[in-house]
């Protein structure tokens, strides 16, 4: 089975049918399956939602969850107006509690801020919504079915892994042609005749097939086979079978395991794959009947299932696996406003000040009451009725230290000889270790050949940083301009999130590739100077480490244009470079 075996025209309608099937399965076992992610698809998502509505009880609530929702509304909290009017705490239910037993639809789920994702994950795990904050302690049932609309375009723009892990189905509708109108057939959906409890326990062949398939596709999480088994059981319910059959297992594997694949299984025997370091886990531990008499016995179920999954792997999953990008993590691109608000409303509380809550500012009820207390007699209040005036309102203040982001722009061109590149890597690694201690973030931009890549968006994870640095290849021309522009963009983005960026450029300063990729020295140098001036004009603090064996004028000039500290380190080893950069970064 190869990547080209699935023509797009064929995947299209299938994906839509899969989405409808997933919806019906979800309706059978909403608590067990968690829900689904529908990527792309536009209007085609509506019939899928309609299917869910038709299959779930008519009184099941449905709520839409906008990404900018605040925690009060999501989890529930104190109803301020009612509380003050009544003189006793009045609680308001949150959106998740309201949706108990029903659906939560999340448009633009790929943009959901991390803390909302974390709350959703916790709610899915426990079936209850819990909060303990701002004088509120609450716990309410919230058995939810999540339908996440993923409108991401780029591969990294997708629903966060934390959430995706907990939703059984990930269906791609974006390969479908939009001109076809997909709608439900007129036939009313008849409710299934069986219930989940009616299905017999799965046989060992079913369990083996699901676990082995997951193993062969490189799926680590133990949740995936559990979801697959639940989906298979739901499928048996729909089909009116009391025993989970091969068709159920195949559908479950296709819908649950296929989209989670991180590698392609090794071909049965014959040619071994050239770059799979670890053997497929199935080889040694497969039950004896699956090896040995391959020829005579009927195919074991896991092989049939695997084949079915492979035939339906979405093309992009195949491409992702082929690129070795499967380990790449979703990057939340859409922070912008959300993140800034977060920094205004979270962090270490440092008391309260007078002000009106709302707009991301949180009321500090206790301070408010304390402010109101001395005036109660004058205002004619009686026990049980506190009179609070607008002047009494206090809002919380938070202290968030502006987080530092150090952006390394590393020249990985051929002219920065291999040894220098190793030193630069060494220095970056040392700085990474520092950053990790201080909880600062680091980002890594590399430029070589004809352009620059952001190898590592700002992160605090040493594991990721080390991995991407280790993969940094060298060679090719020096597109310094592209590198500086990329670093500038990362710095500006960091600034927009309320962080303080610091750029460290490590290069020999000899640009020879222009912004448009042309190998014209003069143009390249002029472009680099322009890029340097842009950084200077943005007043982003920076350091310019000249790593050429004999530093020349160009380096110092570029540094001056950037407004950067110039550090010629002709014979600097990693330690010297590290010390220099640390010294410069001190205010």
């Amino acid at each position, binding site marked *: 089975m190869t990547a080209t075996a699935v023509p797009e025209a064929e995947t299209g309608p299938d994906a839509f049918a899969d989405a409808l099937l997933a919806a019906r399965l979800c309706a059978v076992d909403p608590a067990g399956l968690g829900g689904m992610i529908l990527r792309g698809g536009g209007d085609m998502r509506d019939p899928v939602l309609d299917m869910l509505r038709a299959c779930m009880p008519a009184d099941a609530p449905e709520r839409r969850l906008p990404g900018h929702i605040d925690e009060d509304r999501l989890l529930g909290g104190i109803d301020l107006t009612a509380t003050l009017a009544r003189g006793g705490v009045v609680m308001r239910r949150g959106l998740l509690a309201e949706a108990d037993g029903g659906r939560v639809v999340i448009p633009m789920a790929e943009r959901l801020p991390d803390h909302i994702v974390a709350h959703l994950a916790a709610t899915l795990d426990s079936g209850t919504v819990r909060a303990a904050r701002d004088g509120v302690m609450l716990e309410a049932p919230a058995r939810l079915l999540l339908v996440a609309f993923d409108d991401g375009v780029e591969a990294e723009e997708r629903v966060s892994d934390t959430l995706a892990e907990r939703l059984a189905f990930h269906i791609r509708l974006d390969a479908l042609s939009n001109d076809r109108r997909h709608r439900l057939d007129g036939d009313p959906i008849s409710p299934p005749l069986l219930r989940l409890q009616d299905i017999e326990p799965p046989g060992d062949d079913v369990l083996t097939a699901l676990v082995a398939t997951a193993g062969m596709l490189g799926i680590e999480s133990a949740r995936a086979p559990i979801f697959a088994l639940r989906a298979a059981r739901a499928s048996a319910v729909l089909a009116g079978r009391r025993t989970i059959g091969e068709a159920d297992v195949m559908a479950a594997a296709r819908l649950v395991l296929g989209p989670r694949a991180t590698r392609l299984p090794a071909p049965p025997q014959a040619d071994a794959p050239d770059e799979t370091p670890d053997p497929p886990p199935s080889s040694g531990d497969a039950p004896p009947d699956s090896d040995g008499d391959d020829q005579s016995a009927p195919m074991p179920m896991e092989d049939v299932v695997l084949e079915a999954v492979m035939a339906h792997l979405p093309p992009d999953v195949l491409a992702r696996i082929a690129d070795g990008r499967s380990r790449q993590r979703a990057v939340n691109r859409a922070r912008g406003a959300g993140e800034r608000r977060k920094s205004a409303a979270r962090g270490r509380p440092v008391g309260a000040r007078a002000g009106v809550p709302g707009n991301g500012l949180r009321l500090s009820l206790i301070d408010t009451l304390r402010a109101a207390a001395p005036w109660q007699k004058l205002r004619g209040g009686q026990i049980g009725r506190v009179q609070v005036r607008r002047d009494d309102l206090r809002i919380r203040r938070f202290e968030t230290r502006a987080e530092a982001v150090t952006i390394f722009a590393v020249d990985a061109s051929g002219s920065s000889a291999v040894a220098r590149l190793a030193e630069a890597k060494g220095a970056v690694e040392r700085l990474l270790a520092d950053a990790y*201690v201080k909880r600062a973030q680091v980002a890594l931009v590399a430029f070589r050949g004809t352009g620059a890549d952001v190898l590592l968006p700002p992160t605090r994870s040493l594991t990721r940083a080390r991995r991407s640095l280790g993969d940094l290849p060298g060679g090719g021309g020096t597109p310094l301009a592209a590198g500086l522009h990329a670093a500038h963009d990362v710095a500006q983005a960091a600034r927009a999130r309320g962080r303080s960026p610091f750029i460290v450029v490590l290069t020999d300063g000899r640009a020879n590739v222009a912004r448009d990729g042309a190998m014209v020295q003069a143009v390249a140098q002029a472009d680099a100077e322009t890029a340097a001036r842009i950084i200077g004009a943005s007043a982003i603090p920076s350091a310019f480490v000249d790593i050429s064996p004999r530093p020349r004028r160009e380096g110092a000039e570029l540094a001056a244009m950037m407004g950067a500290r110039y550090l010629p380190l002709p014979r600097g080893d990693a330690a010297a470079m590290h010390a220099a950069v640390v010294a410069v970064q001190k205010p």
Partner: protein
Amino acid sequence: MKMSFPFSAIVGQDEMKLALLIAAVDARIGGVMVFGDRGTGKSTAVRALAGLLPPIPVVAGCRYNCPPGSENACPAPEAHRPGKAVMPVPFVDLPLGATEDRVVGALDLERALGHGEKAFEPGLLARAHRGFLYIDEVNLLEDHIVDLLLDVAASGENVVEREGLSVRHGARFVLVGSGNPEEGELRPQLLDRFGLSVEVRTPQDLAQRIEILKRCDAFERGPESFVESWRKAERKTLKKIGRGKDMLPAVTVPDEILSLASRLCIAVGADGLRGELTLMRASRALAALDGDATVAPSHLRHVAPLALRHRLRRNVLDETGSTARIDRAMAELIPA
């Protein structure tokens, strides 16, 4: 109440189970940090252990889980009622985004508003007293809350000085944190304060993975009968913990073990004294669990990765994992 998955029915994950058992025997070990990918059963194991432990005797009516006989230390003895009561071992799952007032406790709003009284409303720390406090995704928690939790966990007492209130109450609990290193690392200062750390992975063995699926499914279909079928194994584990607790004060640590612990810490470059202390305590707890009256090098060897792994100075240039470094050092120090 939702039934929890039996502790003994957890497939594999021996290291995590061992760390939790050690913490159950000696709560002073100072918390367990569990690192692992998603879907590795981190929270299942912690919940399972709490569900396994026998109910604890408490003073009736007490909101601070006071054990009978310690009435004087309670900040609110007026709520006590005569008679004895028992409660299940508390398991507090710290909700995400928990704020300081709810963690340490704060002014009781209802009473302040309704009756103009100044009263303390105990927080999650009081609820977790004598039980477990579980923090999923520690890296998502505000730093100052983590600091606060670690402080209280170490001292066993929660001292509240805020909003005109002055309250102190017992808060002894086993702190269990979980985190995924891919989500961002914890500060080393913070990590150091966890007693033990374990790394969990999904078992790679096919038979084990099938067994996991089988047991999860059986539990889902009929929790009662599944729990029933594991009752014997659970009782055995429980007995082991009980015996370990009884034995712990009597277990002796020979001088050569102490010296071995110090040499090991020096050899692997574990900073600070916490490493040695935890190493000693964990070996002792393991000996007690095993029913041995004296700590042997094999005990030390077994717990060393748990006690030291997270305290090694990180050398980013060295790809060798912490566990491998400890193993190497141990192989040199302890002849197998």
